């Protein structure tokens, strides 16, 4: 009985002593967002409080199991733990590393998936073309009835685009559509890559079928003229997203040394970095498609030059070569080394 009373007194004195400290830590953590830079003494004091809190929790878990004081301390220690071990936030620097270093490396690793995706897209494009060429009545599978009617009157559905919608709205709707197709091609990879496969195959079939249909009416050249400026980059981005989706499928089908869930998570984190680099190019493609592609003032040569130039920038970026162009990014002047020039060269005088 006496021992029990002593223990209760000890707990009481400990609680009374520490209660204010815990409230102090709680207040500090609540206002933590307003403080941008801490001075060293503040950090050291917090580290000490953190150690004290950790000891308090260990004690509470032993003498007050299942009590709300213990749960309160657990919550408080968890918050303090996050503040203590938080990684530094360098968003712009992380994006720069992703664009300059990670994207070329990851695309190199995914070369096989990329080749497979492009092959599927091209094969399905050819299949769609052959299908509509030999069975023209199947054109309705790939082009809408309105488009068929417009082409039958001797016009391409892209001819009057600017009369229907202003360039800016057109660009905006194209960008949102392309971004959603690209993201969808990527996330469908979680269905063991099959979703991505069907999406890429369908896009290839549609493109080939549409070209074969317009060829019947002698308008395939005009369709090519319309898409050449924006289409190369647009289709490249969709193919890359498809390859990333295939990568997700592969991680699920052949997880290797990791459990399937871990392999999937690692593949998503790896692939999402490439999306950060390539998706912004869809904004450029959308602007070209809204402002240049439907404008009759641009002839084939100009469109081809724009398309080629845009693709060149895209290719240089995803391969990382753009950062090595001395014309665009001259090397920084080296800082002077200690000692006299040539002192460390070891060359004979």
């Amino acid at each position, binding site marked *: 009985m006496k021992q029990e009373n002593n223990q209760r007194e000890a707990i009481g004195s400990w609680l009374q002593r520490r209660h204010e400290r815990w409230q102090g830590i709680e207040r500090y953590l609540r206002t933590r967002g307003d403080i941008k830079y801490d001075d060293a003494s503040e950090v050291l004091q917090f580290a000490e409080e953190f150690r004290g809190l950790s000891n308090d929790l260990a004690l509470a878990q032993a003498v007050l199991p299942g009590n709300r004081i213990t749960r309160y301390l657990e919550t408080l220690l968890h918050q303090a733990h996050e503040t203590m*071990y938080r990684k530094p936030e360098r968003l712009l620097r992380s994006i720069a590393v992703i664009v300059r270093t990670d994207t070329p490396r990851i695309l190199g690793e995914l070369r096989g998936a990329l080749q497979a995706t492009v092959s599927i897209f091209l094969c399905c494009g050819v299949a769609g073309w052959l299908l509509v060429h030999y069975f023209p009545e199947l054109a309705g599978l790939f082009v809408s009835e309105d488009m068929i009617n417009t082409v039958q009157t001797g016009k391409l559905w892209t001819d009057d685009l600017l009369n229907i919608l202003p360039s800016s709205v057109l660009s905006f709707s194209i960008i949102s559509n392309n971004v959603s197709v690209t993201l969808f091609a990527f996330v469908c990879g979680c269905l063991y890559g099959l979703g991505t496969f069907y999406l890429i195959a369908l896009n290839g079939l549609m493109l080939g079928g549409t070209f074969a249909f317009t060829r019947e009416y002698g308008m395939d050249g005009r369709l090519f003229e319309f898409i050449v400026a924006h289409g190369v980059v647009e289709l490249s981005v969709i193919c890359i997203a498809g390859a990333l989706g295939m990568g997700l499928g592969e991680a699920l089908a052949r997880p290797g040394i990791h459990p399937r869930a871990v392999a999937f998570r690692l593949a998503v984190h790896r692939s999402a970095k490439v999306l950060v680099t390539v998706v912004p190019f869809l904004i450029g493609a959308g602007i070209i498609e809204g402002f240049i592609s439907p404008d009759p003032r641009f002839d084939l040569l100009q469109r081809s030059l724009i398309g080629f130039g845009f693709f060149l920038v895209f290719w240089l970026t995803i391969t990382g070569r753009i950062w090595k162009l001395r014309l665009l990014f001259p090397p920084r002047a080296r800082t002077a080394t200690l000692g006299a020039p040539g002192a460390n060269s070891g060359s004979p005088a």
Partner: protein
Amino acid sequence: MSERLEIDTPDGTPLSLEIAGAGSRSHAFVIDWHIRLLFALAWLAGFGFFFWQPLKQWFNSEQENAAMWPFYVVLLPAGLIYLLYHPVLEILLQGRTPGKRMAGVRIVTLRGETPGAGALLIRNLFRLIDSLPTAYMIGLACALCTRHHVRIGDMAAGTLLVHEEKIDRESLQDATRLAIDSRLAPADQDLLLEILERWKTLERKSRISIGGRFLEKTGAALPAADKESRMEAQIHRQLLKLAGK
């Protein structure tokens, strides 16, 4: 028994968080869905009311030189509010949204930390799949079937939803006072406070049953009364006495 996420800390103190189930997830989502819909509709209605004529002209116009500002001022922001609600708020509020706050849950990584912007964006990207075929059926099915009750977006991002425990100052003071003065076991002290906190939300029969069982467990004498109302009042009084109130 609720499932918990065990966290290994560098200093060796064991920490665990209660994992939120499909019910809490749905609760948070329904609140968030209504909030974002209401905000988007409020924007549409508010600006649409003031700029109705230009908006009508914009809808009917087929010329390139038509004024574009009604689209950018009225329609675009409403769409952005609806689409970007989750990713933007989750990043700004560190894994929380107003709906999640109200449901008492938040997003954490598998290590129990606040997820970074990248993980939160990935989580939201996979809504494209989770929301299929309609009303987040794939996401809900996954949350019901998986160990941590996560949807595909969470699996991809390495995140999960946990309950956020909030113990207010008054409740902590009550617990401290009990720990100092009471002879009850620590877990019973907590149970007592829990019963008293929920007393008003319980029906009379439940109050008598739960309160009576607690008094029986602690060895206190059960009050004898002929009427239920009197019995309930006496049990309540005894519980308050045990809590030192």
